[in-house]
């Protein structure tokens, strides 16, 4: 067994799986697990088809930078939209959702329609999970291919290298899923606007990071940039909330709560 390849692929894939799983997790907690898992399953299916059809030539065929740019731009658009609304709510310029009242209202409507809340697919949730899993899954596939075949000189070495890299990636996936299973329950206790604010920050961070990478930015600290970008956006958002509270105190009235208000 090529243990160096196993560990290298494990470490590199772990970062990618954490990024994908974070978005799957927040979509599951904030929207619903059905949509999150549907998007994930669709992306995994497409990935399996791509890997099955193209094999190791996939790394040359898929323009990863173009994909990063598209996904990054869309995440940036979604992230800024979520963040804007969450900041307006914290500042008092937009009504906070009365979560319990809205939940009861939605449940009553769904009961009347004969459906359960968990059974409704949400296209936003599906799209978010799909894009993130597809992008990160492709990156993992590239890691496995690159790490697996880089030092191989014969077909047998190449096969052994690919197996070792795939094993490392699989171990990383298992670790991320196990850790995620433990942390998703406490996340459900977090208030709705706090979660949406956090998701807005995260989508903006990932969007900035991926779109920036595709445009040729070498982020300081490479993947660690996700952390300092997040801290920066968090501090800026806190400042914006403080600034906007002045406008709220100056006499603006928040609109009435509506169960149909998006976000």
């Amino acid at each position, binding site marked *: 067994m090529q243990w160096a390849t196993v560990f290298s692929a494990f470490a590199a894939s772990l970062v990618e799986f954490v990024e994908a799983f974070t978005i799957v997790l927040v979509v599951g907690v904030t929207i619903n697990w059905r949509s999150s898992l549907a998007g994930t399953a669709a992306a995994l299916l497409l990935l399996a088809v791509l890997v099955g059809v193209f094999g190791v030539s996939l790394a040359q065929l898929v323009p990863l930078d173009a994909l990063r740019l598209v996904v990054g731009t869309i995440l*940036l658009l979604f992230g800024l939209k979520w963040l804007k609304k969450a900041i307006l709510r914290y500042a008092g310029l937009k009504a906070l959702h009365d979560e319990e009242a809205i939940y009861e209202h939605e449940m009553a409507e769904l009961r009347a329609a004969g459906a359960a809340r968990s059974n409704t697919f949400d296209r936003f949730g599906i799209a978010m999970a799909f894009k993130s899993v597809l992008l990160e899954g492709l990156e993992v596939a590239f890691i496995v291919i690159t790490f697996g075949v880089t030092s191989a000189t014969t077909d047998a070495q190449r096969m052994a290298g690919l197996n070792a890299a795939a094993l490392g990636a699989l171990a990383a996936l298992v670790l991320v899923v196990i850790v995620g299973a433990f942390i998703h329950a406490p996340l459900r206790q977090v208030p709705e606007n706090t979660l949406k604010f956090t998701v807005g920050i995260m989508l903006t961070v990932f969007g900035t990071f991926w779109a920036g990478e595709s445009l040729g*930015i070498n982020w300081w600290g490479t993947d660690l940039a996700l952390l300092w970008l997040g801290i920066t956006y968090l501090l800026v958002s806190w400042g*914006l909330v403080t600034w906007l509270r002045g406008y709220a105190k100056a006499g603006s009235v928040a609109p009435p709560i509506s169960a149909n208000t998006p976000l």
Partner: protein
Amino acid sequence: MLKNALTSVYNFLVGDLRILIGVLVLLPLVALVAQWLPSVAGLFMLVLVIGTLFVTLRYETIPKRQEKR
């Protein structure tokens, strides 16, 4: 029908014209800066994203906009 479909796609993807314009303007600018001054491109992008958010929020504080909302 086409208009409805396009409106639906726009609302789904963006829903806010200022954010769309901000992002579409910042991307080519960042690409340009990344080519000539790669060491500051990251910081430049960060400032533009924050600027887009600031302008969008500033617009929300205009009284007419608040009445509409």
